[in-house]
């Protein structure tokens, strides 16, 4: 798979993921570029990569961490997620619903947001999420479960 095919396959998903991780569309663009520069080095070795999608997300995950470490020196800090960022990542029936989704996601932890995005919107398996985020499959699944419980509770309360 060439680089342009790689972008067509995963570019949008990686952009959404990086926007969610970094909390800024501008930073996500920079990090996405760095991610593809890194992926370009592995284009010739892709036959050795078992799951290209998980590998691409792993590169993005590493790049996001590198980005935070380099620029903000706050790698281990909880990254504040602004509700208005949801409209950059998701398209809802109307703007109010996008803001509401943003508020619901802001109520979750960064790890739970990450897993829910990757599982329910990008279609990764728990195994792929585990290898992308550097956690076990069970940890990915439990983060997803807790996150979904909180989302349900949030929407249940609002309803």
């Amino acid at each position: 798979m060439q680089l342009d095919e790689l972008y067509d396959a995963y570019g949008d998903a990686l952009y959404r993921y990086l926007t969610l991780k970094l909390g800024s569309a501008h930073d996500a663009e920079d990090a996405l570029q760095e991610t593809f520069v890194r992926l370009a080095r592995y284009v010739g070795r892709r036959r050795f990569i078992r799951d290209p999608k998980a590998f691409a997300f792993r590169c993005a995950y590493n790049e996001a961490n590198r980005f935070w470490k380099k620029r903000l020196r706050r790698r281990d800090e909880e990254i504040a997620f602004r509700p208005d960022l949801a409209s950059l990542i998701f398209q809802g029936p109307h703007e109010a619903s996008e803001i509401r989704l943003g508020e619901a996601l802001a109520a979750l932890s960064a790890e739970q947001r990450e897993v829910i995005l990757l599982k329910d919107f990008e279609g990764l398996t728990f195994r792929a999420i585990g290898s992308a985020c550097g956690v076990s499959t069970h940890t990915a699944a439990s983060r997803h479960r807790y996150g979904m419980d909180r989302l349900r509770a949030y929407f249940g309360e609002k309803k």
Partner: protein
Amino acid sequence: MNEDDRGLPEALKDFVPRPAPLHLRQKILAAATAIPPAGRFLTAAQWGMVAACALLVIGSLAVDAALSRTMVRRLDVLLNERPAAFPVTDADRTGFEEILGAAQARALYAPSARLRQDRTVSMQGRTNWDESVMEDKENADVREKNPR
């Protein structure tokens, strides 16, 4: 592990992922294709430029060698085969004499004329060296007789 779980809440079912801005594709691909793949020293474009430069150098060396060979062949013809191929005419001889005469005249009036005069071959086939040596000997004899 249950991959299906219970799915998204109803409120989230209407949401679809938004695509990345269109301008990003060109920008990112331009940046990423400029990077050599892992384990390679240069990108494909850079290798192409190196190959073109190498071809240019090899081509110029080949042209230079061919020209040198032609020059050597022509010189060889001039030095060895000229009498047979192109016999020296009277006009050639006259021209040669004119050139030689001009060179000799220039040598005579040059600042170091004496030195050049000694080494110049005259048109008659003898050297002026004998005359100058004789003059020097005469002057030496005069100095011996009149030391002051």
